[in-house]
């Protein structure tokens, strides 16, 4: 807390189950936390070998994916609502922290219709806008995968055994399909299917 870092449990937008996220209050940034797990591993730590322990990675993540989860849920009511009435969750009350990202308001229009009444903003989930936004995300991800030579074609056993030149044979649609799958890790299944069709 002193360092402005907070680990909180929020709903993973894909599975709906609780997952750990890191809020960096100073940087105004959200990180997802991934754990490196391999069945057989030990660690060399300084001059020793340790058989237990796990390695956690904190990776920057767009909070919009987490807010999307609540916007979609609220869409059932089919009406415009203030954001603080949408992002509510008695199972993961810390979701209100998401509203503290000033950037969020700026990007909400990617996935919502907006209305302003008496200088108060109301939002409603927009599927069309969301799909357009996600299409761009897939494009950016595909480009990043290609730039960093991630093999996307043939199945590989483990990233540690990939011979360097394998990625060169991968086709454009392999990258798009792979990027869609990767992004779907942050989407509810229904939206992932819509995006695949789109």
């Amino acid at each position: 807390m002193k360092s402005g870092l907070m680990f909180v449990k929020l709903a993973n937008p894909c599975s709906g189950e609780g997952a750990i996220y890191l809020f960096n209050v100073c940087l105004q940034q959200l990180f997802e936390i991934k754990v490196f797990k391999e069945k057989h591993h030990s660690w060399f730590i300084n001059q020793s070998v340790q058989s237990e322990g796990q390695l956690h990675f904190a990776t920057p993540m767009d909070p919009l994916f987490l807010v999307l989860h609540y916007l979609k849920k609220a869409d059932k009511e089919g009406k415009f609502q203030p954001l603080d009435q949408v992002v509510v969750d008695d199972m993961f009350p810390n979701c209100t922290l998401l509203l503290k990202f000033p950037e969020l308001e700026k990007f909400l229009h990617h996935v919502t219709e907006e209305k302003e009444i008496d200088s108060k903003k109301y939002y409603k989930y927009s599927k069309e806008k969301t799909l357009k936004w996600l299409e761009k995300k897939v494009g950016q991800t595909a480009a990043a995968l290609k730039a960093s030579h991630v093999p996307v074609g043939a199945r590989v056993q483990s990233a540690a055994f990939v011979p360097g030149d394998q990625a060169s044979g991968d086709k454009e649609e392999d990258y798009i399909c792979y990027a869609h799958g990767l992004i779907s890790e942050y989407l509810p299944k229904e939206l992932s299917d819509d995006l695949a069709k789109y």
Partner: protein
Amino acid sequence: MDLRELERDNTGRCRLSSPVPAACRQEPCVLGVDEAGRGPVLGPMVYAICYCPLSRLADLEALKVADSKTLSESERDRLFAKMEEDGDFVGWALDVLSPNLISTSMLGRVKYNLNSLSHDTAVGLVQYALDQGVKVTQVFVDTVGLPETYQERLQRRFPDLEVTVKAKADALFPVVSAASICAKVARDQAVKSWQFIEELHDLDADYGSGYPNDPKTKAWLRKHVEPVFGFPQFVRFSWRTAQSILEKEAEAVTWEDSTADQEGSGKITSYFLSEGPRPRLPHRYFLERGLEPATAL
């Protein structure tokens, strides 16, 4: 013999060779292949070729390059020096195969056994002589594994050369004796000047003959085993002797594929019948990297 290249990196394959004598480019030549250090658990294995014009075979013989096994190390060094002096009609080339290369070949995911490694190295050296313009017409080789299969494989690989694979070739054919001397001289020198890449404390230089059944070598192995990292790379991990000492004295290590085999032995139907709704598999990007969402800290 200049082994600086080997001293710079002794973890792989190191090729050394003499210049090609002019006569060997013009006249039909005889070429002998032999090896040194096949049996020891310590140090590299060396494959060497030696060649000379057919017309100068008698001069090579006159060098008294008898069966290298009967010669002492100093006599071998002396004979090798003489061969170098007769550089105008004798040429040689050799491959030093490091213990690390031998072990990783034998223990790798795709097994590469010692006979195949030896065959391929011999073939590589004969091809190297041909590539350098030596007019090789006859090749004499000592046996490695079954003589017939080796003979047939070499003959098929070099159809327009006359290949002879024979046991005890190093005693029968002077070019094979000469190759054997090159190989032994190279191995002796490589072992003597071995650069340990590991920082070993109180390294004992006297490890006996290096053969697995030599009690001195066994004691040396036992003394230099590190429980987590095993032996220095001077040792051939794939040798039975080394493995049994590791099993007794070093930490157990479990490898991924060794357990996977056991798991694999389930019923074939288990691969097709799904038990209830199959959970949505994480994307292969994360699967391949062993990354999962953290659900607790």
